[in-house]
């Protein structure tokens, strides 16, 4: 069954230069495994398409039921250089909640 990521996770995102990070946090511990399986760098890269020019890294924080995604080259140069309305990646986390994931 396909559901949006928002059904099992919440997020917060921000910036470091031209890299945006998205923290993805499971609402319940039993959802963490699904997040690990479904929210892969490849899937996130495909979801954001041309918005993200560089690679995507993923780190795991099992103690918080969370993953941290680093989206490199995602902010049009970042900070004061960027011409984007969301130059600091504040909304990437909310956007990711719309990604469809598969659950059992």
């Amino acid at each position: 069954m396909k559901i949006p990521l928002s059904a099992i996770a919440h997020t917060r995102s921000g910036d470091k230069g031209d890299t945006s990070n998205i923290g993805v946090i499971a609402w319940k511990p039993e959802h963490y495994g699904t997040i690990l399986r479904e929210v892969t760098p490849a899937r996130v890269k495909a979801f954001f398409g041309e918005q993200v020019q560089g690679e995507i890294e993923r780190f795991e924080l099992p103690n918080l039921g969370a993953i941290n995604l680093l989206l490199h080259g995602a902010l049009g140069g970042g900070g004061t250089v960027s011409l984007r309305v969301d130059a600091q990646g504040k909304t990437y986390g909310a956007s990711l909640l719309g990604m469809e994931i598969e659950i059992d």
Partner: protein
Amino acid sequence: MIRIANGQGFWGDWLEAPVRLVDEGPIDFLVLDYLAEVTMSILQKQKEENPSLGYARDFPPLIGRLATRLRERHIKVVANAGGVNPVACARAVLAAAPGLKVAVVHGDDVFHRIDEFLGKGYEMRDMDTAEPISSIRPRILSANAYIGAFPLAEALDTGADVVIAGRSTDTALTLAPMVHRFGWQADEWDKLAAGTIAGHIIECGAQCTGGNCQVDWETIPDMANIGYPIIEAEADGSFTVTKHGKAGGRVHSDVVKEQLLYELGDPHRYMTPDCTADFTSIQLSDTAPDRVRVTGIRGGPRPPTLKLSISYTNGWKAIGTLVYSWPQALEKARAADRVVRQRLEALGLRFEEIHTEYFGYNACAGPAAPPNPDPPEIQLRIGVRGQDRKTIDRFTRELIPLVLNGPPGATGVGEGRPPVREIVAYWSALIPREEIETQVEVVK
């Protein structure tokens, strides 16, 4: 136990927050974070024009407003409000609040030492692009080393009521009172990491008490009176995140998790001048309403280098907008974008980047935006940047004519031509920590 409150997450944050933290309940230390990456360059320019400026000008009047209460209740203030001129900031504080003891921390400002560093063979390569700093040397506006908690704790050790730093890390502001009060040593990494993570949790003010929070955001109590965060720190490194009882907002482990992840890189190695903190060791528990207990934090040695925060000029930019209305709002906006680009091309203007967004359609999310096939209105937003100011200025004249000579239904030009802004960009590099010597001065 000591109570450390954060009343300012950035310069421009809510002016009432620090006053309410002092008025609405017990705190021992009030910490205020004023500096973002590009703030230093603005302050450097102000200092060049007037040698008595170059600091966060909101800070002295705030201390003036709070002075009596700070003195009566023995509340100490730690702030990186000094910018590039902490002594001038201290004098302004003393003028606004006579009788308070004010200490400053020097040594972070290395603007006049760049050539000395280059002479020693430090290339100061950008941490993102690996370019050597020589490529931007003439365009540097400011340069500061991020300093840690120990110099700030040393300033608190003088008995100062107010400690003013320049470019300290945000987390050091919170860790410093713990080092000062608990006597933590430089190799007690687990404790230093705990204090650092406490600092990370509260450094963005209300972002850990219900601000910008997705967790049941519709039901967060009394957001208009949101409480700013308080750390109740223990000498063993454990701590509780909370807020004053009568204040609005919500402190819960789900809320704190969002802030822990905010602007995080590698969670195993969160590097500061004081230690390396491991975010995968953090244990959270909800012990009571609006109280989150944090334990188990592990840390490692501090790095042999300090990070430099350098700002430099990098050309000019302008961003112009027009609103297109239904029907076919998106098609009209796209046609207008094509017209603008064709006219810029015909003028022979060259830019480093032309970037178009359709605000209301996909500006934030790009291809990830949910479908919106027939939006009632769209804001066309075109931005350009380049090194030649005249070229950017010429662009700003190309949008308004479209109201009469482009696709139908354009409006929203009330502000006139968009301003041309100089780009002050940010460069980060590493320097051996031995190069940075800090000094504490009690200002009379």
